[in-house]
């Protein structure tokens, strides 16, 4: 089942993603800008991406197989805070239909 997020909901998700990185990485808030690279600039790692996706799946009650998320990330590489926030929005909106929704 798919859903459509409003601009306000997308903004909320971006703010939540940003808060997640500030807290998990213990970095100053001003460093977590939209174009900050999570691994190279902020010192994040792959497990953190997994943790973030898992957290938002539960928070927004998203039904999606992990392999679908893997396929999405293959075609939509994410490096920055803004890119990962957009990926979370796509996952929340698309669920298991994510790949069909975002060719």
């Amino acid at each position, binding site marked *: 089942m798919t859903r459509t997020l409003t601009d306000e909901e997308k903004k909320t998700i971006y703010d939540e993603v940003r808060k997640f990185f500030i807290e998990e990485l213990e970095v100053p808030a001003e460093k977590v800008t939209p174009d900050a690279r999570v691994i190279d600039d902020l010192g994040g790692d*792959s497990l953190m991406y997994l943790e973030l996706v898992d957290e938002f799946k539960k928070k927004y009650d998203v039904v999606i197989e992990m392999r679908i998320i*893997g396929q999405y*990330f293959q075609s939509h590489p994410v490096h920055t805070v803004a890119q990962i926030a957009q990926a979370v929005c796509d996952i929340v909106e698309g669920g298991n239909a994510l790949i069909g929704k975002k060719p």
Partner: protein
Amino acid sequence: MSAATELTLPFAGSVRALDGLPCRAYAAQANVPVDFVEPAGWLTSAEQQSMPRACSGERRREWLGGRLLVKQILLDEGLVDDPCEVEVMADLRGRPSVRRTGCASPLGDCSITHKRGRVAALFTPDAHYRVGIDLEQVSSNFARLESCFMNADDDTSSPSDRALNAAVGWTLREGFSKATGQAFAVLFDGLRCSRDGARWLIQHPSGAVAQGVVEEGRGWITAWVSIRTCILMSMGVFA
């Protein structure tokens, strides 16, 4: 006296031949001290310019340490006489690529990992293989997220220690993702880890199989992984 012997090696004695992988491979691990200072003459200007823009403190030490370890392997194995004869630069997939300075073809394949001031590097001169490495500190995070990446058919490294078992499963998968250059997307891909004696086999749903060696001690796990370049073709990854 050669240029190499005139230099002070930053991590002397840390290089060893790694047993258990099908290719000839050399490994090195080190703790990067808080007061670590970049030794002069180890990085080319292109390498210095490639440092991530916000890289400072521990991240900077780790970034430097990983590159110096690769160069130390090459020096110790007699493949170069001077650290600046080679450059360790990111390729288009973001993997480190080691080449003679000014040359296009790689000298071999390498992988670098770092965590909390500890760095490790793996290098193979064998052109038929790619290598990947991951280093993790065992924590409850791995067990908490195991349903996101572990496969029900995975062999266990330590059935009685869930956190250790999940950490081993994660490091093997990370090593696989680094060897293949698939970044973290492949971690969601249904990889399966099984034991073959002392070695681990990491199998991708496409049928591609990598081999890995796991070392653990004092709460740390290191996974050293290699995969034949021709196998990457079956995954749609061009060598």
